[in-house]
């Protein structure tokens, strides 16, 4: 194959030159022709052959990696941290974030403000539902 490629490229003169040099140096008999010639060519012309060789054979992925696999690989070890800084809300007893106000209590207090700051509203919320419960009981 290597010889074929070389002949295609039109470097016949170079092959003849090489073969002559080799034969003179190593004293190869004429019978021993083709396989050694290719070997000899590989030894003596490394740059051209290696370039071609690299372009022909290389380890490459067979399939495109799916989006899912890519994201799984890139997000490995980057999962969300658990929130462990938690408290019990003193106003309602629910679990809340430390140093943060409990959202239900904030809503309760806002309702109180809407109803009138909770100062004179003490009577109305207690009477209305107690009347309802009294009727049912």
């Amino acid at each position, binding site marked *: 194959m290597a010889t074929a490629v070389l002949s295609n490229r039109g470097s016949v003169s170079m092959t003849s030159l090489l073969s002559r040099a080799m034969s003179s140096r190593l004293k190869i008999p004429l019978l021993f022709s083709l396989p050694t010639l290719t070997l000899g060519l590989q030894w003596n012309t490394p740059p051209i052959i290696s370039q071609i060789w690299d372009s022909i054979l290389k380890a490459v992925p067979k399939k495109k990696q799916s989006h899912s696999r890519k994201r799984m690989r890139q997000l490995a070890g980057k999962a969300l941290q658990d929130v462990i800084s938690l408290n019990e809300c*003193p106003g309602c*007893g629910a679990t809340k974030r430390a140093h943060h*106000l409990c959202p239900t209590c904030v809503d309760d207090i806002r309702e*109180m403000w809407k109803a009138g700051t909770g100062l004179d509203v003490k009577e109305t919320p207690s009477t209305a539902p107690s009347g309802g419960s009294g009727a049912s009981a």
Partner: protein
Amino acid sequence: MSHIHHRMLGRKSSHRNAMLRNLVQSLIEHESIRTTYPRAKEAQRVAENLINLARKNTEASRNEAFKFLYIHGLNDKLFGTIRERYANRNGGFTRVLHIEPYNGDAAPSAILELVDGPKDMRFAMTAKSVARNAFEGTPIHPLTKKNIAKVTRFRQNGEEEFQKVVGYFLSIFERRGSQTRDESPEKGITALNTDNSQTGKFESRVNDAPT
């Protein structure tokens, strides 16, 4: 930018100043505002300075304060009730409290409020926790005791007002407690009854109940 000691808030100077003026104006108007935490902290500085101008109450400070608020009608409030409220306080007129993010972008949020005002969240929160302790018969937490002292110290009629808010929340706890106590023994029936009451058959249910 280590030499600049305030947040840029992602705006150029004019935009930032306008935003802070708006925030502080809303704070003076409504006593309590809800924004992101960085904005609340920046507006807090500006608000403290403005209230200090009101406390000075000289010709120069009044001119300086009048330049600040967009709504000039609020100057009466600033130099009236707010100045009187903080006459004996040397700073710490405002408070920033973390709350759960309320916006869709989950930005860290906060409440900026005027201390000892009608919408003092810590005052109300402390009262609620005291009310819960009273309702459940549990001792008051030492931190809550500290908060009670803080919250009632400078407020006018602080103790009385505190007890009123405690009473309000106690009534709410009692109401909720009685509701759960009523519903707990007959769960299936109450579920049916609530359906009836929603569809407007409340009267018939009341009549049927004793029989």
